């Protein structure tokens, strides 16, 4: 596990120093939330009832940027080659990269949750469910994104092909996370914990596939 934390720590230290996610991706998330408010004509009732969907669509947009950033810090100085030569197992590199992406996404989601409370006047009826769903959905997004991010390495069209590959795969996560938040924010009468279980299944599935496949993809990165 030491190597996993080392890879995750490296990515997070780079982010702490460069502040790209904090200074560019986080403001982007807030801008999208504000734009949704403008597009829906400041109708608070509509905004409140659609908060779960708007929140998770924004998270998916933000995730694309965060994953691209996670990959670009490795490709910019041929760091993938150094990772390969370090002898660290592929699944450990994958786990470290996914944990770093998840940590950054969770930090952004915390600010976004504050944003929807202030901007959309949403309220948390079941905070435990909201936090659990956010954790499970973020792990699913981070694991699938870390695998697909490295699949897009070495191509001139990386920025456009990554969303095309990743978003359909994450569509079930979007649906399940939205339904779980519907329950947590009391915007619809659904069983949020059942959807939360589905999110956990997707997170586990993508983590297993990513852990197995990452070494194969890393050979070509």
């Amino acid at each position, binding site marked *: 596990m030491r190597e996993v934390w080392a890879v995750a720590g490296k990515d997070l230290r780079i982010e702490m120093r460069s502040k790209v996610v904090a200074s560019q991706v986080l403001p982007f998330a807030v801008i999208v939330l504000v734009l949704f408010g403008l597009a829906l004509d400041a109708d608070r009732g509509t905004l409140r009832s659609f908060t779960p969907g708007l929140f998770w669509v924004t998270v998916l947009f933000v995730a694309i940027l965060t994953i691209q950033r996670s990959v670009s810090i490795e490709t910019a100085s041929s760091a993938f080659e150094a990772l390969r030569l370090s002898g660290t197992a592929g699944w450990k590199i994958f786990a470290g990269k996914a944990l770093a992406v998840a940590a950054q996404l969770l930090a952004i989601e915390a600010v976004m949750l504050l944003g929807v409370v202030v901007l959309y006047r949403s309220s948390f009826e079941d905070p435990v469910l909201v936090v659990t769903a956010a954790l499970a959905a973020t792990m699913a997004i981070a694991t699938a994104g870390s695998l697909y991010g490295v699949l897009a390495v070495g191509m001139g069209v990386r920025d456009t092909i990554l969303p095309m590959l990743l978003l*359909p795969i994450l569509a079930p996560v979007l649906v399940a996370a939205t339904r779980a938040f519907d329950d947590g924010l009391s915007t619809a009468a659904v069983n949020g914990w059942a959807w939360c279980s589905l999110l956990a299944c997707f997170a586990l*599935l993508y983590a297993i596939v990513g852990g197995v496949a990452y070494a194969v993809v890393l050979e070509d990165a």
Partner: protein
Amino acid sequence: MATTTAPPEKPVKVVEPGSGTGSRTTRLLGLACLVGVAVLMVFAFALTEADLVQQDVVRMIYIHVPSAIAGYTGFVITAIASVMVLWKKSMWWDIVAVAGAEIGLLFTGLMLATGVIWGRPTWNTWWEWGDVRLMTALMLFLVYVGYLAYRRVVPSADVRARRSAIIALVGVINVPIVNRSVEWWASRTLHQQSSLSDGKLEDLTLFTLAMGFVVFAMVFAWMLIHRFRIGWLELQADTVGLQAAMAERRAQMEADIDDAVAHPGVSEPIEGGSA
């Protein structure tokens, strides 16, 4: 069988121009497909009865259901071939994978189109956003659109084969989700349960549907064979081109060496050098 690790050393057999991808067997299979489709249309539109509730719209089932099965089959073939690509490092299996995906996508598109057309008179809507079967099927379609788009942007055949195999293996997870969605989320779909398992189909309807499966299987096989042969010819053309380029380079080097031996002491000035 070529491998992904190196191009074949021995010259490959070059297919004569105009010979195409057909053979006696595939022409017979193609003819059987044409006859089969014609007979299926007669049964579907003339011999079977209209449904009491759905009227003539029910005839769409003879295309819609076999299309769905053919689409799933294509994606499962792609997944199996992708496992073989990663295991055997074989370009042969990579061609099977792309053939399965393209044909699977075609039939899934047909399934979506016939489903939309069927939905309008039956459910009074072309598309229902909350319907889990429709949404999962559309996502399955988009996953394989992404798979094929990805294959077009990776220049190296070896890398393309390995990476797209992983995308196919992740994508095939969606097939059982689409297929089982009407049972798993029965309250969130307008779609009926499995047409075969509910036991409500009459004998002639069931026979025509079974005929639809057979005819679509034949059409699927015919397309798969031809698409595979096209892929194989493309691989041969690339290999022949590579061999020609290597031979040209080798001849140039030999000519340079002969020239250097014939004119010792005469060398071209080094570009940008001081000597």
